[in-house]
């Protein structure tokens, strides 16, 4: 059955995400193709991974031919922040349709919409959730298709485009600061990065820094908690 009213409400709620996801998806497609990845791999990633920060990072990981274990650890760590989103949705998702997909589609933005936007009482929530999840992913995939095709057909000087990855993480770090209002985690992150930077080959820097950061967190636990 097709639930038109639920789709309409979901579409209206998803409009702000449409802007963000199609543009950022486009940028991802463009970056992936310009770094040598085939367009269909970029699109595949947006379909089966569907995580902005991780996919941008993946462009670097893949072009550096990073090992599978390192890729696995880095992927878990980058997305650790979303591993508790579900907590506040356990109740809402109890009667969900295609629950495994809904959980898969739980990006930062979808989570924000699901937990903050109030909808009219008389719509079928389970369809509304499903449509919202699918619409948001369709913007992301649509943007990626456009970006990767544009990138493989139009040729221009993309030198420096990979800075978008740096810029993305800078922005995410600022957003983290706004939430947590503490300096210690950032200083710790900077220190372990520099240690990783100078002590091990650059391919190992990420995983080594993550390991050091986890150790550092427990050494500085009191300080971080009380700041």
């Amino acid at each position, binding site marked *: 059955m097709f639930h038109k009213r639920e789709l309409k409400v979901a579409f209206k709620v998803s409009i702000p995400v449409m802007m963000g996801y199609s543009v950022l998806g486009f940028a991802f497609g463009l970056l992936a193709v310009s770094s040598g990845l085939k367009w269909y791999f970029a699109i595949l990633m947006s379909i*089966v991974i569907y995580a902005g920060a*991780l996919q941008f990072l993946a462009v670097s990981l893949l072009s550096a031919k990073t090992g599978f274990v390192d890729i696995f650890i880095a992927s878990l760590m980058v997305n650790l*922040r979303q591993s508790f989103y579900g907590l506040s949705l356990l109740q809402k998702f109890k009667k969900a349709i295609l629950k495994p997909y809904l959980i898969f589609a739980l990006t930062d933005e979808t989570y924000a919409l699901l937990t903050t936007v109030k909808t009219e009482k008389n719509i079928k929530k389970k369809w509304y959730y499903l449509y919202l999840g699918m619409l948001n992913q369709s913007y992301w995939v649509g943007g990626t298709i456009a970006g990767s095709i544009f990138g493989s057909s139009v040729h221009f000087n993309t030198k420096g485009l990979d800075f*978008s990855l740096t810029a993305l*993480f*800078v922005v995410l770090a600022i957003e983290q600061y706004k939430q947590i209002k503490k300096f210690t985690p950032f200083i710790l*992150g900077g220190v372990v990065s520099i240690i990783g930077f100078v002590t091990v080959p650059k391919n190992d820097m990420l995983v080594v820094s993550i390991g050091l*950061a986890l150790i550092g*967190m427990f050494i500085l636990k009191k300080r971080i908690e009380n700041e």
Partner: protein
Amino acid sequence: MSDYEYLLLAILIMSIANYITRVFPFLFFIKHEPPKIILFVERNFPPIIMSILVFYTLTNVNFSVKPYGLKEIISIIVTILLHLKFNNYLMSIFGGTIFYMMLVQLI
């Protein structure tokens, strides 16, 4: 292993890792609250990993030869200022990137 196989496997691993992070609470915390230590890591690790990732994206920059990573540092400052001023992540990311592209292509 061919390039093709490497990419397919790597993408599969990333999608599994990503799904694990999203499905985690639905598997383990349906009945009880997560332990304090996990909440501590969950709350405080994201800012650490974001700062590590900023550095990670700069691993190809050589800070010991001219211009000593100055282009990257200036572009990061531009990105930060844009984000603090307009608070619009698209504008910050694209503004910072276009600024950097101009720096490396024109100078």
